[in-house]
């Protein structure tokens, strides 16, 4: 506040303020241009960013995972291969599993799910329990994914039937949504013994292996190591890195943000031209005044400074206003569209608003540069004669 007071007491600033007030409508119109420009840039950036954040968050929990599956012509991933994986550094968990799509029956109703053979200790690394507990190795119990459970209206303690075998539901998992490894929501997780009972012909080998790395930064190193170890002589396995999809999504949305901001900056460009126009008209009208100023001792740089200050004040005022309108506007819009404003309060959102304000001020200054230069170069004699 003290600073504002000091600026207000500055005579240059007072002159600028008065000159801006002199043509209120014109100043307001120029300001509206800047306000719209700032809004366009900032809100387009925010829009792209919010989309990016909301999409990439649903994938972020799988960023540290690699999915290993047999290469073309191979049936499965062998125990021997899993053993070799264990010798690679940087791996936190190796989760091999076998699975089979199956009809799940409960009373008279049927739903479809995937039966997974997975160690109970490994299952814990992938999912969270909503209610109940994990199954015990060797038992006939099972743990259900959330969508299977809700489709059949099951709860802990219910008895389901798969392939005419009865299984007791001991746990229901939390919903995990979209995922690149396995769709746990439609899963029925059982122990090795139970799986063998359901499928007596099932092989010991695995359909896929999920590898969780210790640190997301190690994903690429571990991936290379795995390929070097397992595909030494011929291509036995394929590796899918979950973070690659993350990167793709991120770069796609980055492009969208940039594109949208590009569109926004066109309106700021137009605003810059309108500032140029307004200031140019203003210098023409005030030619005589510039002459007087120069006659009583204003140097070229004094005049330049006065006019630039006018553009700057207009720019700051309009850009800040644009920033405020953006915050209010996009908050409302995001609330109505997404019904969730948490992404709006991400720090990057404010980066876009600051960027919008910054570009607004810079545009105003650039727009004011030529008129200010023109004013400063006026010959005082000609300026004084100007009617």
């Amino acid at each position, binding site marked *: 506040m003290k600073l504002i007071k000091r600026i207000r*007491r*500055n*005579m*240059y600033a*007072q*002159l600028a303020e*008065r*000159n801006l007030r*002199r043509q209120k409508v014109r100043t307001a119109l120029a300001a509206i241009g800047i306000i719209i420009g700032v809004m366009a840039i900032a809100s387009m950036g925010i829009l792209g960013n919010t989309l990016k954040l909301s999409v990439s968050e649903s994938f972020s929990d799988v960023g540290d995972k690699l999915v290993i599956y047999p290469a073309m012509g191979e049936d499965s991933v062998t125990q021997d291969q899993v053993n070799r994986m264990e010798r690679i550094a940087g791996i936190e968990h190796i989760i091999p599993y076998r699975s089979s799509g199956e009809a799940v029956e409960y009373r008279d109703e049927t739903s479809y799910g995937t039966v997974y053979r997975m160690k109970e200790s490994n299952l814990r690394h992938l999912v969270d329990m909503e209610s109940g507990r994990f199954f015990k190795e060797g038992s006939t119990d099972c743990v259900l994914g959330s969508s299977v459970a809700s489709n059949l209206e099951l709860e802990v303690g219910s008895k389901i039937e798969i392939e005419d075998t009865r299984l007791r539901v001991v746990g229901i998992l939390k919903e995990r949504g979209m995922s690149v490894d396995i769709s746990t929501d439609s899963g029925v997780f059982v122990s090795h013994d139970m799986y063998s009972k359901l499928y007596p012909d099932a092989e010991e080998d695995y359909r896929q292996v999920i590898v969780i790395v210790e640190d997301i930064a190690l994903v690429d190193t571990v991936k290379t190591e795995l390929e070097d170890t397992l595909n030494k002589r011929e291509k036995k396995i394929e590796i899918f890195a979950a973070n690659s999809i993350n990167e793709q999504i991120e770069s796609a949305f980055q492009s969208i943000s940039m594109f949208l901001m590009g569109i926004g900056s066109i309106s700021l460009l137009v605003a810059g031209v309108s500032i140029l126009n307004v200031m140019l008209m203003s210098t023409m009208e005030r030619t*005589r*005044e510039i*002459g*007087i*100023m*120069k*006659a*009583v*001792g*204003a*140097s*070229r*740089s*004094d005049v330049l400074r006065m006019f630039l200050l006018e553009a700057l004040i207009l720019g700051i005022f309009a850009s800040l206003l644009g920033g405020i309108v953006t915050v209010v506007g996009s908050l409302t819009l995001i609330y109505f569209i997404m019904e969730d404003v948490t992404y709006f309060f991400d720090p990057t959102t404010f980066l876009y608003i600051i960027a919008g304000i910054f570009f607004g001020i810079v545009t105003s200054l650039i727009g004011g540069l030529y008129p200010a230069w023109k004013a400063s170069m006026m010959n*005082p*004699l000609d300026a*004084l004669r100007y009617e």
Partner: protein
Amino acid sequence: MMTSIVEVNNAVRTYRMGSSKVHALKGVSFEVREGDFLAIMGSSGSGKSTMLNLIGCLDKPTKGTIHINGVNIAKLNDDGLTDIRRDNIGFIFQQYNLIPTLTALENVEIPMIFKRLSPKKRRKKALRMLELAQLGREYATHKPGELSGGQQQRVAIARALANDPPIILADEPTGNLDSKTGKGVMELLSDLNRKGKTLIVVTHDPKIIEYSNTTIYLQDGEVVDEID
């Protein structure tokens, strides 16, 4: 002996008007000593406005030299001229040339802004200058549009005095005023002259000669007569 504060030596000013040349001044020489009251008389087209612009450092001679306080302005660039103007010359115009959006007080402050005076000092000095120019304190916050011609010219005089210039340069200071108001303004100016300001007035009004102690008559760009 008094030192000369303005020294015009064989000043020539030629304008280019399309393909033809206009000889506004054809070699004028004179000097003004400190504390003088010089009137430059002449009809329109005599070259007196050109002379005023040269002494006021708003323009440079095509040939010859003009020394203001010992500095040859013919050799200065735009910024150099601005400095000389700001520190040595107070302008008074026929049309007053006040800035319409500023109050009387603020108009007087303008030259001091460019001299980088602090706001406090500016305000204090501007009030003193208005007093010196005999404008009532109650008019200090009025805008030029709310003042009479005579009052506006007094504001302009206060503004001319703001940076304590040794030279006051007036262009038809009474041209837009009725004779009674004009007389008041002239008395104020000659009073300032008695207090030590060098006063140069450009005019075609013979009544001003009554106040001046030297008069130069210009005709067709040449000095035709000089009366001490």
